[in-house]
């Protein structure tokens, strides 16, 4: 399988804090990779470096190489905006645009960047909402405010909004941690379907979730990559003692 994203000796500093230490790993195309590890170990920091979200934090410094399709996204002359269109992101807390309707939220990526012909918009809204299994629940109230939806529905709306701009990679930072078990299940099913088209990298605190949804798992500890490989292997016969302890709940 192709490697869609590849990290080569990535180090991330915030001022004097060394948050991510010399991480090299690969994310195969059309697969789900879970990043696990105790709180503060650098999961979010690593994830956010893959679509250059750290550009906004003045104290953040990213070194090493992050290749998406063999191109280093931190190369001079690479436009971070263009990278973010290829590498979308779903956040921990659902964050639909509060001043917009459900309909407008789905096409926000287009509307905020310019205009979108009505017919095309209708089509995108319907197909994206169907893909996140939200269409039947909202098709009669597309024009109502997005904040009227439940937390789980809002999160699926955010995923719809992300796939509407046709990214290649989707980063998810604990996308279900603010949701109830049923909504969580729906998100997990959705991830399963999405990987046919996209490469997904998901941060999660939930071991069962990592085991259920991911093909590969990476275990981070204090900014170091302790172990990474096929999920099945990591969860049954990890090579490192630390990984085993974490997965079995002995620490973290």
């Amino acid at each position, binding site marked *: 399988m192709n490697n869609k994203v590849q990290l080569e000796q990535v180090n991330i500093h915030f001022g004097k804090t060394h948050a991510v230490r010399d991480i090299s790993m690969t994310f195969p195309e059309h697969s789900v990779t879970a990043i696990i590890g105790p709180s503060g170990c650098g999961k979010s920091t690593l994830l956010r470096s893959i*679509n250059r*979200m750290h550009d*906004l934090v*003045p104290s953040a410094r990213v070194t090493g190489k992050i290749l998406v399709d063999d191109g280093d996204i931190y190369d001079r002359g690479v436009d971070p*905006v*263009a990278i*973010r*269109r290829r590498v*979308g*992101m779903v*956040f921990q*807390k659902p*964050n*639909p*645009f*509060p*001043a917009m309707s459900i309909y407008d939220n789905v096409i*926000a*990526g287009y509307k*905020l*960047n310019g205009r979108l012909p009505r017919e095309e918009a209708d089509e995108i809204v319907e197909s994206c909402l169907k893909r996140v299994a939200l269409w039947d629940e909202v098709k009669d109230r597309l024009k109502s405010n997005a904040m009227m939806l439940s937390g789980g529905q809002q999160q699926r709306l*955010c995923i719809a*909004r*992300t796939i509407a*701009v046709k990214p290649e990679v989707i980063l998810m930072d604990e996308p279900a941690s603010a949701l109830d078990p049923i909504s969580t299940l729906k998100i997990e099913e959705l991830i399963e379907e999405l990987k046919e088209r996209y490469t997904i990298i998901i941060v999660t605190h939930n071991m069962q979730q990592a085991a259920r949804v991911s093909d590969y798992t990476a275990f981070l500890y204090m900014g170091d990559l302790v172990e990474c490989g096929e999920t099945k292997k990591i969860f049954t016969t990890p090579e490192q003692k630390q990984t085993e302890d974490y997965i079995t709940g002995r620490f973290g």
Partner: protein
Amino acid sequence: MMQSVTYRKMKNHLMSGLMLACTLAVLVPLGLIFFHILKMGVSSLSLDFFTHVPAPTGEPGGGMANGMVGSAIMIAGASLIGLPVGILGAIYLSEFGGSKVSTLIRFAADVLSGTPSIITGMVAYTLLVVPMKGFSGLAGSVALAMIMIPIVLRTTEEQLKMVPGSLREASLALGVPFWRTSLKVTLRSALSGVLTGVLLAVARIAGETAPLLFTALGNQFWSKNVMQPMAALPLQIFSFAIAPYEDWHRLAWGGALVLVTVMFALSLTARYFGRTRQAG
């Protein structure tokens, strides 16, 4: 034990009574001003008042139409200059800020908003009236804009800072450039709060007299050319109130009533926007 409870209750009553008294102490002067102006001014409000320029000295009748139109033009001009500068400046401070430049700008804005408005007028006089060799509505607008900018800048900045960072991130993650995000997501989310600040700033400059004294100067006749001296409602109130004619005094009261009503309406609208934002 029981005693201390009664004592506490008594203290409680005493304190709420005191606070009520203080609130009334604020309301009473406001009510007095408004009703006095209403009583004195309402009789001079006729159709003529809103459609005519002041009558020549000694003749009865006339109105303050030119002053109202002049004020409207100068307020519009001041907004045209002040709103873009204030709002874009606020976006800079809140979204790109954090540098030494921002600290300097904030400090300058605070000093500017504390500057007596007569001094603002003097500055506009030296910068515009002297080199252009004449009083003008434009100079008046600039003076008013200088008062408006710090108010709009600081209130807008406060509002923008209240927009949660997760919204900015949501927009950026969709591949929307930062400046578009600032305008279309951050500013848009803070719009009602920003509008409140803008209305309060307009209300503030609508009543300013001192900075217009030696910029717009005032005009007895119709004056719609911003390069010429221009009439303004507060200026007319001032010059009519100190004139020795009974007739003019009455017109001045009428003008005062119009001005107070407009400012009152602006403040109420501003409140309304502030309220709906909290509810939404």
